């Protein structure tokens, strides 16, 4: 617990941004009539709230690459990194559960379970991908930029134009089978991203020499 508190203190303001967005989205969900804005809420959750799961995972390595800690911590940090990742993603999933429950309760047509599986899968993919990018490029800015570009492009083109994997849904046109498959694939993809992150974080030689 002390270590988590230390990481939070160390992140400073950056830790609170996802929480502020969570509160904002929750207030919107409570205040606005969900029946009229169902699809808007659904999209808002995906393109505004879900990508912030990468925010925390990316800032986990801020110390390593932006305060010249890599050479000192590299020998000890890899195991701790994955534990910290799990801790922060768990906090994010708790917030997600609250927002999904709010949306599900106010909308009779939406299934809370399906929605939670879908959005959790997106959280796992985006957060682990963000972590991998931050470690690979040794840069918080580059990885955040890449995530923002992906989300913005997906939103503008409604996930149609570019020939890369699309993780967002812009209509309620998914089936239980689709979500289950998406969930399983996401688990494997996230695991792969985390394994690569674990592998890369221990290697110093990428851009240094």
């Amino acid at each position: 617990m002390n270590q988590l508190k230390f990481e939070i203190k160390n992140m400073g303001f950056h830790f609170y941004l996802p929480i502020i967005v969570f509160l904002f989205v929750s207030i919107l969900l409570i205040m606005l009539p969900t029946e009229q804005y169902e699809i808007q809420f659904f999209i808002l959750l995906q393109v505004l709230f879900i990508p912030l799961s990468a925010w925390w995972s990316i800032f986990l390595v801020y110390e390593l690459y932006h305060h010249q800690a890599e050479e000192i911590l590299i020998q000890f940090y890899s195991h701790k990194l994955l534990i910290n990742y799990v801790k922060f993603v768990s906090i994010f999933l708790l917030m997600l559960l609250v927002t999904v429950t709010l949306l599900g309760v106010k909308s009779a047509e939406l299934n809370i379970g399906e929605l939670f599986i879908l959005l959790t899968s997106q959280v796992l993919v985006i957060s682990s991908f963000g972590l991998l990018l931050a470690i690979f490029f040794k840069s918080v800015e580059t990885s955040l930029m890449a995530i923002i570009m992906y989300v913005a492009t997906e939103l503008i083109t409604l996930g149609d134009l570019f020939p890369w994997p699309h993780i967002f849904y812009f209509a309620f046109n998914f089936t239980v089978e689709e979500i289950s498959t998406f969930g399983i694939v996401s688990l494997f993809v996230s695991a792969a991203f985390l394994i690569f992150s674990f592998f890369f974080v221990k290697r110093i030689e990428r851009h240094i020499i």
Partner: protein
Amino acid sequence: MIQVRNLTKSYKYKKILSEATLNIEGIYGLIGPNGAGKTTLMRILAGLVSVNEGEILVESDKFQSKDLKSVRNNIGYLPQDFNMYPKATVFECLEHIAILKGLKDRKERRNRIEQVLEQVNLLEATKQKVHKLSGGMRKRLGIAQVFLTDPGILIIDEPTAGLDIFERIRFRNLLREISKDKTIIIFSHIVEDVEFLCTKLGIIKEGKVLAEGTPSEIAQTSSGLVWEIQAHPDHLPEIFKQYTVIDIKQQDYNLLDIRILSEQKPNKATPLKPTLIDGYLSIINGWGIEKDEPIKI
């Protein structure tokens, strides 16, 4: 004693280190110009980077190219900038690093932190935030985090870079104090630092070790090459073109004492006793040494 034998490291087809051989003991300084391969060699010694060829022997144990873990356990490494966890206090920072380094028992860990803080004279700054520490205090904090696990070998990059004169002297004295029972390897391009601190030096250029010896032995390599001439300030541009100027002292308004390095005796020059910087420059310039043979002193 650390023996580095024929270390070769290439990166993207470029040779960074070429058959580097060193015998490291006491307080050892490795100096060389920028791009000489110092950082790469330092990272190899710290167990952070693997090598293509060669071996490192620490005491009687042999560590070869990819066996990094075993090297790391006995080595403490302090990079040039220690600026970690700026929002944390000195104690929190050390406690976090101690946990990462595997000091699990809370009481034992806290005792150890107090011990190392006392050792580096930072006890009064325990509750101070890292970003509020002066450059010298941050360096000492860096040493403190290294001492948490009491390594036998200490690698320090540019020990006095960015420090003011008082902090520089204080940090140098601290290193002198802790060097009694440790091997300390200092990487620097500030010759005065290594002259003050080191008992033995290595000079590296373009990935090759050019010379190794005590500071006075290195200085002696420029014996017969160091001269002093007196000249009017107006003649300086011409002198710069002809000679390697090491130092200029204003004697009076119209006269300068100019210390130069030259293979030929300049006109009206008087010979001077060589210093480490003279030796270093003459070795770097390749004067008085065989091109492909490191000087064995």
